[in-house]
């Protein structure tokens, strides 16, 4: 039994019971972050802020949304958009944040790839991050079903059809996932459950894992330098703040993060009020109709690159290529054979690999939306082959990379 004394203040009272002073040190003032970083290191905080925006707006949407095939569309477009006070605001914030969160995730991912932040003990950070990417994808997809518009319905139809596994014809599995022969009531309610409960729970758990995975290897820095955090933090605490290579998480790192967040929010709210169209596909403002396919079916922009990998091949090869593209990023720390954990610019062929991958994924993204005809079809096919080729080349080019 611990020794409790009469508290001298509320802070002291809480401190005796919850050790808040220690918690604050561990999580904030004595959680050490390298000083040698740039604004790209703030993407994590931006993601946290965006996730909170999604959570809060989602809670208010949940108050009036009805997961019923007959009323879902009207509960969103009439009740929430017309009747609920500021309902339109929650919806636009939710829709725009759901799209922008993927932009930030991609920037966050490519920052990690560029600076080698998945190596030397940071593998679990990368893997938990990729699991978060999968969870966010599931969250985005299930959420896209809920307004029950034409794109909701047909995206649901096409994506669940993927589980038939091409020539395996696992139609039973597809029907099991849908709870019906086609997307219908059972389908909508279960995706509603996934969207508002199961997947968010998984995301929150994975965020905990992602943050936890950072503690032992520490945050990477611009030069991939291995910092003696013990010694540097002593230096800082001794008063040599300018000379130390580390900074406190709060408020040093936090203040820089919040500055980037400040700029980001200007961009974000500009999109919410004046440029929301990209995040809310017009086709989804037509109610779901199982007997009428939209002229063009395409997923939201952040899924286009993997959709395009599926498309140019015959069904079975396409599915295999698609499955490959979904899991291969997780294996990045093990496919990169080089011992160097430095920025890509100092890493021989990997430098070219990085930019080729980025440009290839943008090409795939663009072709994924365009109709698969003529030149677009060819570019899409080439880009898909290049994507697979780049991953096959990765272990080879990094194996021969010179140690710096």
């Amino acid at each position, binding site marked *: 039994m611990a020794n409790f004394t009469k508290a001298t203040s509320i802070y002291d009272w809480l401190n005796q019971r919850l050790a808040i002073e220690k918690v604050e040190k561990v999580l904030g003032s004595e959680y050490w972050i390298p000083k040698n970083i*740039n604004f790209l290191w703030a993407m994590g905080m931006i993601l946290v802020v965006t996730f909170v925006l999604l959570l809060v707006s989602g809670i208010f949407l949940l108050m009036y949304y009805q997961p019923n095939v007959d009323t879902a569309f009207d509960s969103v477009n009439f009740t929430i958009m017309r009747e609920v006070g500021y309902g339109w605001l929650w919806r*636009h914030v939710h829709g725009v944040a759901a799209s922008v969160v993927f*932009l930030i995730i991609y920037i966050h991912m490519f920052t990690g790839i560029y600076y080698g932040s998945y190596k030397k003990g940071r593998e679990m950070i990368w893997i938990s991050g990729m699991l978060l990417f999968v969870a966010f994808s599931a969250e985005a997809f299930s959420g896209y079903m809920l307004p029950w518009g034409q794109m909701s319905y047909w995206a649901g139809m096409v994506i669940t059809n993927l589980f038939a596994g091409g020539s395996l014809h696992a139609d039973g599995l597809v029907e099991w996932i849908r709870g019906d022969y086609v997307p219908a009531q059972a389908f909508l309610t279960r995706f509603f459950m996934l969207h508002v409960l199961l997947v968010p729970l998984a995301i929150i758990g994975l965020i905990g894992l992602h943050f936890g995975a950072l503690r032992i290897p520490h945050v990477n820095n611009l030069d991939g330098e291995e910092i003696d955090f013990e010694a540097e933090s002593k230096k800082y605490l001794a008063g040599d703040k300018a000379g130390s290579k580390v900074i406190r998480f709060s408020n040093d790192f936090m203040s820089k993060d919040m500055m980037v967040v400040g700029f980001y929010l200007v961009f974000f709210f500009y999109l919410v*009020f004046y440029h929301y169209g990209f995040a809310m596909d017009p086709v989804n*403002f*037509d109610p779901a109709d199982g007997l009428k396919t939209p*002229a063009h079916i395409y997923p939201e922009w952040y899924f286009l690159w993997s959709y395009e990998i599926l498309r140019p091949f015959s069904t079975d090869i396409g599915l295999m290529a698609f499955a490959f593209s979904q899991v291969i990023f997780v294996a990045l720390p093990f496919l990169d054979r080089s011992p160097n954990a430095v920025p890509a610019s100092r890493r021989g062929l990997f430098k070219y690999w990085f930019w080729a991958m980025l440009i290839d994924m943008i090409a795939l993204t663009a072709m994924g*939306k365009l109709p698969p005809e003529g030149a677009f079809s060819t570019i899409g096919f080439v880009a898909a082959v290049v994507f697979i080729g780049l991953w096959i080349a990765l272990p080879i080019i990094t194996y021969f990379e010179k140690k710096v």
Partner: protein
Amino acid sequence: MKELFILGVVTVFTLVTYYLVEPFAHHTLHKHVESEAFAYNDLSAITKVGDAARGEELVMGAGACTGCHSINAVGISAPMDAVSSAAAYGVNPPDLSNAGVVYDEKFLNALIKNPAHALAVEHKFDANIGEMHPMIPFYGAGGDIDQEVADMVTYLQSISVSSEDLTPAMAFENACGRCHGLKYNQWTQIGNKGSFKHKRDELSFDIQVLDYKDSLKAYMGKLPPDLSMYIRSRGEHYISTFVENPQNYFEGTSMPRVGVSADTAEKVIEYLKDAGDTKRDEREETGKYVMIYIIIFAIFSVLWKKQVWRDLH
């Protein structure tokens, strides 16, 4: 400086991706139709000066308009209710009280002489093989047909409300609302649904709507869609150019060219905005304040960072 360069790189890649998946893809996926500002260039203009008094005689007499159409403004009611009219003609013929302001003058001129041509549905109603449009062409009352039609159009214009008094709802209901429902405004093809004290009255109204829709479906080939969210699903430009001439987008569609004037089209768009983008003014207004606030937020975040980092450099 290096940080600004990196920001530039991130921005360029983001914008290129945005350009490719939004403006460029949309340009490739969707046909772009330029508006002709409701000029109806293929129809000929009225050359004669119309006389409203003679026009009235023709409308009531030899023109036989009131055989099918009501003109509520001068106390002439329809020979049949909406549901029976639809059963007879496929669709309820419009009330002519405000036809003179809702529809374009050139269009009315052409419509009276040759409905299928003015409505751009000759692919559906080919008089040569006996497929007649339900509206019978006016073959003239013995005099100069151009003069007679000009008189009728002038009469219709004389009894209409002024274009300032034509509300968006009136424009929509007359030009679009006999085929298209708009349930977010309680509008059905046979009028406003309103509220009912007794469930059975409501059900009997619903049955009338269903009967009307059945006739309409048989006439049009498919039930014309509800337009509640069209301003979001199609957008202003598409709706405007579609209404101008549906054949622009779907060759062979059974939707007729409605022949509204440019002013009426604007009002219809406004009506659709009120239905599907009701809070647009609130969005603009709130947007301004949020942007001002968030810029102040950003300024303070910079100031705080500067203060915290003063000792760290």
